[in-house]
């Protein structure tokens, strides 16, 4: 049965202008345009979006969990890279 499924697509929704697209979930679809339709019907029913991206899940290159120590731990002790030494101006909501 699993082999009969249409390819999987990952769905990214931009909720309003100015923000970036966020991963919303995934849909099955036979082609790109169908994936866009399905993403619209499944993930923007309640007015969630102003823009949709879909991409074949198989096209995504992901980091390997086994390598996460090498990938991410070196950043742990470099606190000076965090922009926490600044005052955030009033009125900036999405920094």
């Amino acid at each position, binding site marked *: 049965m699993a082999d009969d499924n*249409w390819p999987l697509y990952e769905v990214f929704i931009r909720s309003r202008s100015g923000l970036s697209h966020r991963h919303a979930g995934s*849909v*099955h679809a036979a082609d790109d345009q*169908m994936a866009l*339709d*399905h993403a619209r*019907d499944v993930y923007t029913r309640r007015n969630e979006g102003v823009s949709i991206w879909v991409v074949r899940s198989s096209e995504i290159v992901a980091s390997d969990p086994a390598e996460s120590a090498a990938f991410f731990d070196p950043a742990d002790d470099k606190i000076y890279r965090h922009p926490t030494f600044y005052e955030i101006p009033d009125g900036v909501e999405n920094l």
Partner: protein
Amino acid sequence: MDKDDALFRYVLRLGDNALVLGQRLSELVTQAPELEEELANANFALDYIGQARLFYSYAGELEGGGRSEDDFAFLRDGNKFRNLLLVEQPNGHFGDVTVRQFLFESFYALQLEALTRCSAPRVAEIAVRAVKEIHYHLRHVSQWLVRLGDGTAESHSRVQRSLDDQWRFTGELFAVDEVDEAFEREWNGPRLAELEFRWNDKMDVALQEATLVRPAAQWMDGGGRRGRHTEHFGYLIAEMQFLQRAYPGARW
């Protein structure tokens, strides 16, 4: 036919088309071949039922007799419905549904576009909202027509047969009667001859893309807008109205 009568009848027809097609699509809920398609179909059904409510509420106001949207939907006999025969046709298989939606919605989109410019303000307002929904439906169903028509040999032959079977209901889309004439004259309504010309163009382009053959000119069925429906309609009405008929005034 006077101006107000034409408006009432025209609005009621729009409501009937929307309700009957919405009911047909509702029958498919839980029946779609894929989960995502299931959601799409239920959305489409709800779009139509939402449109029917707007048209019926307005028709009730125009009539001034205190009839509500529910009275129009659930307490009218079948021969009082004025929908097109095409929208009452049974769902059949997925290709049949695709073709029915494609034939009707290609027409309905043109009709609604014209209605956004009519001089009946409430109708124009409803049309502005509805046309967005129908443009999306049409995008979705047009893609399916190509996938099926230009798909496998099996899908091609089945969807071609769907087209051949349902073509005889397309004549009624453009058959002008006294309500259409009066609505066009009094309310700057759509000119059906012009819509037909544009619909034919769209058909030629879309069918060619889907590698389907346009059926030859043939005898066309009709009569829905005079209350003469096909045999399938009785079953649709019976199921839709059962609850209100059996338990008058029942509420959730």
